[in-house]
């Protein structure tokens, strides 16, 4: 199971030693990144593959290599066959520096979805708390 910033995606992977290989098709379908001579590409954006050809093998692309190339944090559990691809620190930092409040959508106790953006036009006091 590959969890892409909170979104679980069932993918086929080949595990060899401590490396996880995803086929080129899987990477495109699950993450939207296409393998091209320039590196990994999505839309107009291409990022070079970190460590060059060692990231690409007979079984596809190395997941840790994908994460490193995209500068995204990767948490891996080989025994559970599960991985979490997080959001890059520079991406989060840049978004905060724009001062645009990042939008979110979360459920209330009644299962109703609320987003921040639906309250545009009002001042919002956003309070994060917990029972702990």
């Amino acid at each position, binding site marked *: 199971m590959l969890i892409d910033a909170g979104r679980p995606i069932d993918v086929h992977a080949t595990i060899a030693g401590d490396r996880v290989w995803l086929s080129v098709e899987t990477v495109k379908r699950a993450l939207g990144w296409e393998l091209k001579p320039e590196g990994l590409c999505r839309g107009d954006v291409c990022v070079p593959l970190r460590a060059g050809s060692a990231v690409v093998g007979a079984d596809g692309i190395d997941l840790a290599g994908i994460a490193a190339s995209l500068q995204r944090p990767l948490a891996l559990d080989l025994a559970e066959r599960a991985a979490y691809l997080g959001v890059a620190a520079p991406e989060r930092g840049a978004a905060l520096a724009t001062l645009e409040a990042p939008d979110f959508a979360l459920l*209330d106790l009644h299962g109703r979805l609320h987003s921040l953006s639906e309250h545009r036009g009002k001042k919002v006091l956003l309070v994060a708390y917990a029972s702990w």
Partner: protein
Amino acid sequence: MVITVALDRSPEDARPWIEAARPGHPALIDSAHMLADLYNMVNVPTVLWIDERGRIVRPNDVAFGDDTFRRLTGLDAARRLDALREWVRGGVRPFTDEQIRALQVRPSAADQEARAEFGLGEWLYRQGRQQAAERHFVRAGELAPHDFTIRRGTMRMRGLDPMGPEFREMLREWTQAGRPYYRPLPDAAGQDRPGG
């Protein structure tokens, strides 16, 4: 408009608090800590002010609605509420954009690695894989020891009491090294004093 978000293990953990408050505003639950990731929140309570255009006018701060925890936190609730009223009624912004950017704490690579470990642990926990989840919660806490949404916020999932001896020991060890448990914004109108 108030929006509250509970960074809790489950809706059931937050339910008694929400039902007791009977809020007229959206009271949301965020078990995956999506909000903490988006806004780089590392403890609760964390409060932000967002204007009519969806822009942050006051970044992450610690604020309580009253002085129940004042002896613990040194924070003066009234001062923050006055500033909030001035903004809501009078449109008085507490900071310029440049000041806000200077006050914002942006996440480090280790913070985001910790959130990925938390995300994997939380997912494994939901699958009933507590033992596997434990490894990732521990790793997340090592990567971001200042992130109490992780270190304290995972305690219930780990079978620990977030008000109990494990938490008190964590807090003692943290604060004895001279590190603050709460990190409020500097207050231009006068300094908050611990115990004040």
